[in-house]
């Protein structure tokens, strides 16, 4: 009797078992539960880890990053920023410094910027400075001019008290002459270097009403502009046409500003109004022939036309300089019209005068909260005497803005006037 070798037997049994198993798996499931279990077992053979696509991966990395956001990004209080220190300065990369509560409640702030047109801005501030929480304080680059003060938002503490040292070098400022009778062909450039030291204090009466008082010294220096395409101001104007060009005065400057801010969101208003009132005294400390006072106001109203997506925005601003008897107001200290916030169809600094009037109307509509379109018209007048309601220059145009709820991120505008067509890309509201 032959005995079958064990290995073939095992192989046979194994084959039979596999065949039986295969047959069983091919047989229709007997129950719903079994049918579902088979599907799951089938998937078990092919499981793979979840892998996000490349774009999603980058988003995840950004979301997870515990690094500060781009707005918060800083190194020991130094925040990289791009600024526009003056109209026509071009973009100026630089840094701001912000360190709150350095000594008790005292804060330190600073800024250093240099533009591709060689404009320079440096400042240092110390004291109880207005700010909101940890946020770096908002600022107006031209905080000393009326047209920008409405963008300085009240903050805390209620009693700010701080000192400022500031130096600005503006090498290509434009000058076309004084008053309304100037032409685009009169364009000249000059260089202004300005140093200021001042102390500011104030009181935030309510969340919406505040006043600030400033006092300090301002040193001015005027020289030939560095733009090669235009003549320099001193080559085209004498001290009569451009007062102060021969011997620019230094000033003791006293300033008071009062804010009534009843806008719903200052950087992106949909309703409410704002009124800023300014009173300033400039006391000439060098030649004693350029002392003057400045008064002015800037009123802005925002009327929803039956819906927050339709806004009528109105603005009226007046500035009036009054020189002391026998004195004059230096050309470089006079307010001006032209550029992205005032007469948008004209070049920056196009009109200068002792009396400035600006009137703006915009119809804004928002297809959605972060996208706004606008049609606008601006009118303005810069005169040497009388009221700035006559000989109005005007322009019109349209624009598109991308916004957050609090701010305009990007503003694209095109404006037309009888002189030129201007295009703007800005990161601030028009007014």
């Amino acid at each position, binding site marked *: 009797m032959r005995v079958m070798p064990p290995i073939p037997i095992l192989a046979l049994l194994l084959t039979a078992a596999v065949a039986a198993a295969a047959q069983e798996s091919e047989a229709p499931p007997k129950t719903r539960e079994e049918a579902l*279990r088979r*599907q799951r077992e089938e998937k*078990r053979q*092919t*499981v793979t880890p979840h892998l996000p696509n490349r774009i999603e991966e980058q988003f995840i990395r*950004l979301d997870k990053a515990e690094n500060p956001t781009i707005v918060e990004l800083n190194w020991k209080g130094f925040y990289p920023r791009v600024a526009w220190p003056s109209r026509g300065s071009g973009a100026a990369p630089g840094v701001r410094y912000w360190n709150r509560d350095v000594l008790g409640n005292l804060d330190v702030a600073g800024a250093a910027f240099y533009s591709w047109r060689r404009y320079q801005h440096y400042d240092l501030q110390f004291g109880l400075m207005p700010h909101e929480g940890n946020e770096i304080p908002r600022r107006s680059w031209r905080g000393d001019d009326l047209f920008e003060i409405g963008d300085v938002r009240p903050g805390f503490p209620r009693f700010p008290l701080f000192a400022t040292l500031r130096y600005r070098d503006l090498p290509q400022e434009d000058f076309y002459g004084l008053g309304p009778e100037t032409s685009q062909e009169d364009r000249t450039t000059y260089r202004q270097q300005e140093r200021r030291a001042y102390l500011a204090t104030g009181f935030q009466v309510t969340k919406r009403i505040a006043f600030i008082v400033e006092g300090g010294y301002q040193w001015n220096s005027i020289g030939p502009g560095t733009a090669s395409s235009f003549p320099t101001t001193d080559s085209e104007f004498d001290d009569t046409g451009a007062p102060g060009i021969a011997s620019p005065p230094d000033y003791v400057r006293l300033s008071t500003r009062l804010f009534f801010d009843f806008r719903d969101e200052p950087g992106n208003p949909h309703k409410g109004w704002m009124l800023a009132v300014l009173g300033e005294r400039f006391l000439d400390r060098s030649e004693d022939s350029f002392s003057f006072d400045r008064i002015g106001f800037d009123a802005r109203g925002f009327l929803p036309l039956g819906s927050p997506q*339709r806004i009528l925005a109105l603005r009226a601003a007046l500035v009036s300089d009054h020189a002391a008897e026998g004195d004059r107001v230096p050309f470089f200290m006079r307010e001006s019209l032209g550029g992205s916030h005032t007469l948008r169809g004209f070049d920056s600094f196009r009109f200068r005068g002792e009396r400035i009037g600006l009137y703006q109307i915009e119809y804004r509509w928002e*297809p*959605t909260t972060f996208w706004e379109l606008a049609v606008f018209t601006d009118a303005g007048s810069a005169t040497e005497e009388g009221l700035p309601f006559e000989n109005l220059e005007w322009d019109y145009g349209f624009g598109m803005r991308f916004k957050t709820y609090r701010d305009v991120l990007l503003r694209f505008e095109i404006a037309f006037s009888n002189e030129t067509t201007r295009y703007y890309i800005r990161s601030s509201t028009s007014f």
Partner: protein
Amino acid sequence: MILHQRDLYQCARGPTPARSKTEALRAPLPARRASPARSKTGALKAPLLALALVATPAAAQKFYPDDPILVDRDDLPIAKPGVIELSATYDLLEKTFAPMDPADEVPRAMNVNTLGEVPDSSWFQNRIGVREMTLEELARGPLVGGRPELPLTVIAGKATGISPGFTVRDAAGKVYFVKFDPLPHPNLSTAAEVIGKNFFYAIGYHVSESYLVYLRSGDLTIDPGAQVRIEGSQRVPMERAFLEKMLEESAHHPDGSTRAVASLALEGEALGPFQFQGTRPDDPNDIVPHEHRRELRGYRVFCAWLNHDDSRAINTLDTYVGGPGGSGHIRHHLIDFSSSLGSGSDYLRRIAPQDPRAGNEYIVDFEPIWKAFYTFGIADRAWRRIPYAYPRYAEAGRIESEYFDPGKWKPEYPNPAFDRMLADDGFWAAKIVSRFTDDAVRAIVSTGDFLSKEAERYLADTVIRRRDKVVAHYFRQLNPLEGFSAGDSLEFRNLGVERGLGEVAGYEYEWFAFDNQTGELAPLGASGRADDPRIPIPDSDSPYLMVRIRAESPSEPSWSKAVDVYLSSNRLVGIEREI
């Protein structure tokens, strides 16, 4: 006449044309709807292994002996999958600007049993939909683990985001996530969190336990290793002053304490959120694309009812439960209901009453945007004119019922499952909504522990009126017959009639013998008509019978749509609805 059951599983290709009875039998009960936004995402590229729990291949067995299954055993042991991360920003952009591929067909939900119900699973646990829940049960919600035992030790802080808070360990060692109401809005978000959670728990979703707690500074200590990330900096050690400031800037209870909601950490290991589309490729149990899961499609109905506009993937969480070392499985949870009911966030993403846009328009909704664009803003949103009761009932936030339209409600941005919801999905959800009685709603709303009884009453009344609208809307989409029981005759209920939505003159019916293997139907006599919801069962040797029922209602034309009911030895085994 021989008919094939595979026709019953056809997908929709357009509106159902008017049909003669014979024609209707040839193409019975197709799914329908030209689907709106749909999708193309990586998730959908996952192999579509899934078949509906009821959908079997043509000419294959339709009913199994264990049908209808009440439990889907999707808890088979699996190796622990990896953690899935989701970018909330990417999710918004993808769903808004690159939704899933449009498709002509929206298949019926794939995870229902032969009765069209959702079996219990790792996704859903039938509760109020299948049984009575006492008011105490409803008010207790998911709470089983116990309130946090004081003192609490802060082990991490969260100073950024919509609602700052802490992660704490209580005296018993349990971990809770603690969130506060902001100073200007006492009780708003904490009430929404607790109330919303209790509703969704009763509906059947897996949620965490959340407790309202009233804390004083002395109840909190700081773990030496606790860190917090504050705006403008990376993580820094948490200091007592920071904790005190957070308490100080949170809403206070009249007794001086600070109210918070403490959510117990979910059981198991967190694996990240689930998506409302595709399947997890690393979970063998996950075989039905999520956009075709009825409880996720129907989630839209519940979210509309409770104004949970923040019902997006980032507010979900999968956990690995059931055992270590590859013996566990995934359970799918909903988390964070603080942006529901009248609570939401403002433009700075801080807790605030709901934005009037919420529920009415996506964050980016192209149609109204373009309309407003080319009409110079004249085409305005109707929702802007809704007169909300806020701030009269400040704790309830901004929620109303008069202008609420369940069919038009929208979440923050498109959701693939919501977009694929069909009338039968909506009907399933509305049935559950209809199970919440007035007392049930009031019992759950009372868990918000409002200071103002008027606010509590207003919110409960609003939820009740919204419930009625939801039920009316979805019960009018199809023939709302339910509650079938077979004895000497087949009896059923008309939920629409019971809710007073319309009158029925009678019911047309036609019986068939059904071949479970081939799907063939053979008529059993002529069609009949019954005045009442009771129809005789014919004598037949066939192991399976099917009856097609249509209601005659002059006021509700949708009720003439067919409902096919399958019996086996007088046992109810299947229900299919024309949509």
